């Protein structure tokens, strides 16, 4: 799937038919085409275990592709890995700092590893400590740091050589909102200065906040690309979840909602485990009318909630396509996606489904 055309432009990342199959036969990445122009804040969105980290590791030369071509900053990742390594910053999903060294020593080691000239090191270290707000903790061993501080230190060490391209693999997972916002600010700042950022995330909110453009990956394949707004538009509005007293009335409630004329034609009404769910641009304005209509029809409503689309909804919308029969919600859709693409992915499907479910209950 081509992501727009920039024929004359140098891409920070360019992959063609990228495939990676692990020795145990798991096809983690199955034919990914990516084109990330220089300066872009690019988001790679997907649930756990769909191939995000594998892809980013191939781009960072930690894994060799099974097939396909990978060019990073104009260098072939397989033929010239050292050139690629010199020109990228990489922040792994698990925070990577040496706990026995101080913040300053960690950054200094990175400076030396990336060959920052001796004369510039001290000023570079101070500059980075300031940027990630660790000046006061500069000479404390990283062991004593909180998770957020370690993450920020990790981010600083990935930037010592002012790489034109930075890979961030789920950089804010497990952080409290304050620490997360601080990191977001920081990523935006370096992006403003011209650094291309390739970020993976499972949170639509994060992608929405930061990214210029997104690619959604599912079962090792890119299923959609576009700006966050474009992707959310594909969901078709906001979502009204209605909980019902008993499951027998669900069918009746769905019929009420579908026949009500409250929502536009594109809106979808689906039964869920607890009741029903309406996806519509009018979900917020016509929600109460639906509740009244349900009461008039003798259906007991025990709870309701209007919310913005989440990653699950985007997945749902994307993988569901024009098939409106998605009755069991996310679970069935995921399975549909797997069977539609390739039967091999089935081993992973259950895992992916579990994550998606817990995501949904969050």
């Amino acid at each position, binding site marked *: 799937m081509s992501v*727009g055309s*920039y024929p004359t*432009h140098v891409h920070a990342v360019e992959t063609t038919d990228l495939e*990676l*199959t*692990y*020795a145990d036969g798991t096809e983690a990445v199955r034919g990914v085409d990516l084109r990330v*122009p*220089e*300066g*872009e*804040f*690019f988001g790679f969105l997907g649930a756990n275990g769909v191939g995000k980290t594998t892809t980013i590791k191939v781009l960072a*030369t*930690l*894994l*060799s592709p*099974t097939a396909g071509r990978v060019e990073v900053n104009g260098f072939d990742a397989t033929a010239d*890995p*050292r050139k690629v*390594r*010199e*020109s990228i910053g*990489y922040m*792994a999903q*698990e925070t*990577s*700092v*040496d*706990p*026995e*060294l101080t913040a300053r020593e960690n950054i200094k*080691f*990175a400076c*030396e*590893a*990336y*060959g*920052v*000239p*001796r004369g*510039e090191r001290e000023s570079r270290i101070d500059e980075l400590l300031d940027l990630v707000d660790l000046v006061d903790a500069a000479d404390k*061993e990283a062991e004593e740091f909180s998770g957020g501080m370690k993450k920020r230190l990790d981010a600083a*060490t990935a930037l*010592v*050589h*002012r*790489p*034109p391209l930075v890979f961030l693999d789920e950089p804010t997972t497990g952080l409290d909102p304050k620490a997360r916002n601080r990191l977001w*600010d920081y990523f*935006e*700042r370096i*992006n*403003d*200065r*011209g*650094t*291309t950022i390739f970020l993976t995330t499972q949170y639509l909110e994060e992608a929405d906040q930061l990214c*210029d*453009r997104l690619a959604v990956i599912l079962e090792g394949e890119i299923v959609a690309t576009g700006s966050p707004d474009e992707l959310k538009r594909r969901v078709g509005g906001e979502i009204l979840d209605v909980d019902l007293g008993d499951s027998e009335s669900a069918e009746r409630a769905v019929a009420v909602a579908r026949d009500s004329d409250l929502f536009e034609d594109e809106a979808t009404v689906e039964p869920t485990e607890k009741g029903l769910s309406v996806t519509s641009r009018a979900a917020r304005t016509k929600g109460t009318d639906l509740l009244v209509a349900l009461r008039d029809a003798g259906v007991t409503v025990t709870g309701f909630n209007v919310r913005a689309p989440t990653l699950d909804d985007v997945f749902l919308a994307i993988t569901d396509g024009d098939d409106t029969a998605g009755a069991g919600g996310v679970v069935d859709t995921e399975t549909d996606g797997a069977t539609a693409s390739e039967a091999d992915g089935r081993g992973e499907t259950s895992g992916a489904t579990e994550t998606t479910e817990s995501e949904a209950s969050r």
Partner: protein
Amino acid sequence: MSTPTEKTRADGGTADAASVDTGSDTDSEPVRRSSNSFLGDVWVNFKRWNLKAVRNPFVLVVSLVQPIIFLVLFTQVFGNVATSAINRGGGAAISYETYLVPAIAIQVALAAAATSGVGLVNDIENGMFEKVLVSPMNRAAVFVGKTAAEVLRIALQIGIILGLGVLLGADIATGVPGALGIVAIGVLFSFWFVSLSNSLAVLTKDQESTIVGVNLLQFPLLFVSTAFLPLSALPDWIRVVATYNPITYGVDAARAVMLDADVMTVIEVSAFGGLWNTLVPALAVLVALDLVLGSVAVYLLGRASSSNVQ
């Protein structure tokens, strides 16, 4: 630091991406590696591991304490009994302190080498291993630097043991050059165990397994060797095991230098004269062992750091 919310839009080509506001400073100018030398990369890693060793004096002390306890207690408890056993063959009488110090030097090398793999496992666990792999440093230089730091530590610790031994009354017959020789033998001896400990680390990727694995080996191996008593004073089955035990060769080599005499009885060589009749075959065995286990470790490390999927 201008307008953090305003993004450079990407659609439409961002043809000017390269010229995004660099106005304020040189901040978007990427750093070119100032040097690409193998030795430079070795040095960077050597420094990090030394720093870690100093930060963590606990490991340093612990790997010294046990051998020191052995040295003091063995000479005090078994001194009288052992002295008659080691002097049974006649010749100039030597003290048990003198006899034991080379063995303790080898024990120190063994204990220090054992911790090498633990450092590697910690690096794998805290992500530093991957961080180093994704950097442009030469990968062989990364491991050479780490090993060099461990060699330095082993040499210092053996030096401490020799000094302590002399204080307790041990006598190095070959003097200061001999002491340096024993340090060198200890370092040469340590390589096979460094390799073993790193191989275990890469295979198990687990700190406990690595520690348990190397410790399980250390003690039995020490006792079924010529470390504490001469071969002639040991039961037959231990004599057989000792012949195939690397520790015998390390201890015999160090002891030959300590006593300035041919002390090796597992392989009888008489072609070189004096202590060289022990040194030459013992060092040959150790070098061979280092090469074999070293190759295994290099292979395993290479596989662990390669980008080929597993």
